């Protein structure tokens, strides 16, 4: 089944706070992350309008053109949502950095939806959108509740484009991505940026955060703990 999903985003972002942080294993209290909606890790129930929007948005560029039209519509919806929710002066006060695609530009599944969305959202503004990151190798996308790569191996793959950094002094940074899952990618990007500038302000904006269904919550947390070697 394909449909547009939600056709508008809420007019306000929601901050990750103590009521939701438990769903995002790598986030700490000091991390400033915001999202519009919630993506429900698949359990075959309702396929919420936000799930449908994300599903369309993440549609691979290699898919059929009918599906890609839904993707274009999702990009338009998300761009309009960003523009409506964030005041122009706030947009222009920051440097917007896409969290990089899991595929390299020469890969057939390379997807530039994130940067495309930012450009569309803030067209006509004096906005600083910078692709500061790339991965040194293509990886499988991290979806739903699965987490295939450790933060360390992810960090190894993550390369900062120093030319892009040096082009102009970055303003406070907003890392932008579609779904906040464990927070691993956000933390890896943050760490790389702090290696260059330990003091720069960094926040994350996401279309949706992945809400863990109650039943698998404890299971995943336990699995992550054993992986990370934490108590």
């Amino acid at each position, binding site marked *: 089944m394909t449909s547009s999903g939600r056709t508008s985003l809420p007019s306000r972002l929601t901050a990750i706070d103590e*009521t939701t942080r438990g769903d995002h294993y790598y986030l700490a209290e000091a991390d400033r992350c915001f999202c*519009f909606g919630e993506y429900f890790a698949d359990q075959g*129930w*309702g396929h919420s309008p936000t799930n449908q929007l994300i599903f369309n948005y993440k549609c691979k560029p290699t898919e059929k053109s009918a599906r890609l039209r839904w993707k274009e519509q999702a990009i338009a919806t998300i761009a309009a949502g960003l523009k409506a929710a964030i005041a122009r002066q706030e947009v222009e006060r920051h440097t917007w950095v896409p969290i990089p695609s899991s595929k390299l530009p020469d890969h057939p599944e390379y997807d530039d939806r994130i940067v495309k969305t930012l450009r569309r959202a803030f067209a006509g503004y004096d906005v600083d959108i910078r692709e500061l990151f790339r991965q040194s190798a293509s990886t499988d996308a991290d979806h739903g509740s699965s987490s295939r790569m450790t933060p360390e191996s992810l960090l190894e793959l993550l390369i900062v484009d120093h030319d892009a950094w040096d082009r102009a002094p970055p303003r406070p940074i907003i890392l932008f991505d579609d779904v906040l899952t464990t927070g691993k990618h956000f933390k890896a990007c943050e760490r790389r940026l702090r290696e260059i500038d330990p003091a720069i302000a960094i926040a994350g904006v996401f279309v949706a955060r992945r809400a863990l269904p109650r*039943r698998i919550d404890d299971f995943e947390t336990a699995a992550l703990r054993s992986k990370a070697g934490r108590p």
Partner: protein
Amino acid sequence: MDLISQAADLESRAVRPARELGAYEALWCQEGASFKTLAAKFRAQPDAIPSDFVAPAEAERYGRAALDAIREAGIRHFGVRVQGAGEYPARLLDAEHPVTLLYFQGNWDITSTRCVAIVGTRRPSEEGMRRAAKLARHFVQDNFTVVSGLAQGIDTIAHTTAIEAGGRTVAVLGTPITTSYPPENAELQRRIADEFLVISQVPIVRYSRQHWTGNRLFFPARNATMSALTEATVIVEAGNTSGTLIQARHALQQGRRLFILDSCFQNPELRWPHKFLERGAVRVKDYDELRAHFAT
């Protein structure tokens, strides 16, 4: 109106669930607060959220009190929905006094399935109990989610039958998520929270501070939310003074479908079935008739 602040920067415009629930609790502890007065406040300021009306320290204080009560009740997983943000369902705005904030436990995704409310008296007849169970089983077979209010009688049968039949169920409480009523349904409430979805708009702090006579008003208020959340309400059995009739009134007012079982019409002492039929309710003999209505 009494807006405290509305800043434009990304950080302060963002909804913080813990802050908002604190502000909601604080608003409820103000003199004369009701769903009606709160809804009026937000209708006058359509872009406002609870914390726009409450001093930060006060929101913080009430938030702590509510979060402590939640923790003390042994609840580890819960969330809130705030009007104007996140996954607050637009259809709740069809209510006469839309809720500004609600608490939930469980899997919110269930609200994206087709939901039907099965409601009725707390003291059903043998026949009424049998009919409620049969309906719940049929709705489950047709992949509907059975929504009810966790009260004694028809509500309890609707929930338990839906679970036994392998289906989904949602409980819309007339108490805070930290409390169970009737007490004998505490285990059922826990099970629905663990495996399905429990929703409550009832403020935790206010509920804990006032007498039963004030708190019982939360029960009919939740019926408006239950109706708004579902695409239809089915009344199995109800007396002339039953709280179920509150939901009937709200369903029609919200443009939701209201079905009344034929058996209700056969009791000569009942006036309400005819009254609601005149206002647009649908009289149904059995599930096949109901199913035909849902297919259109």
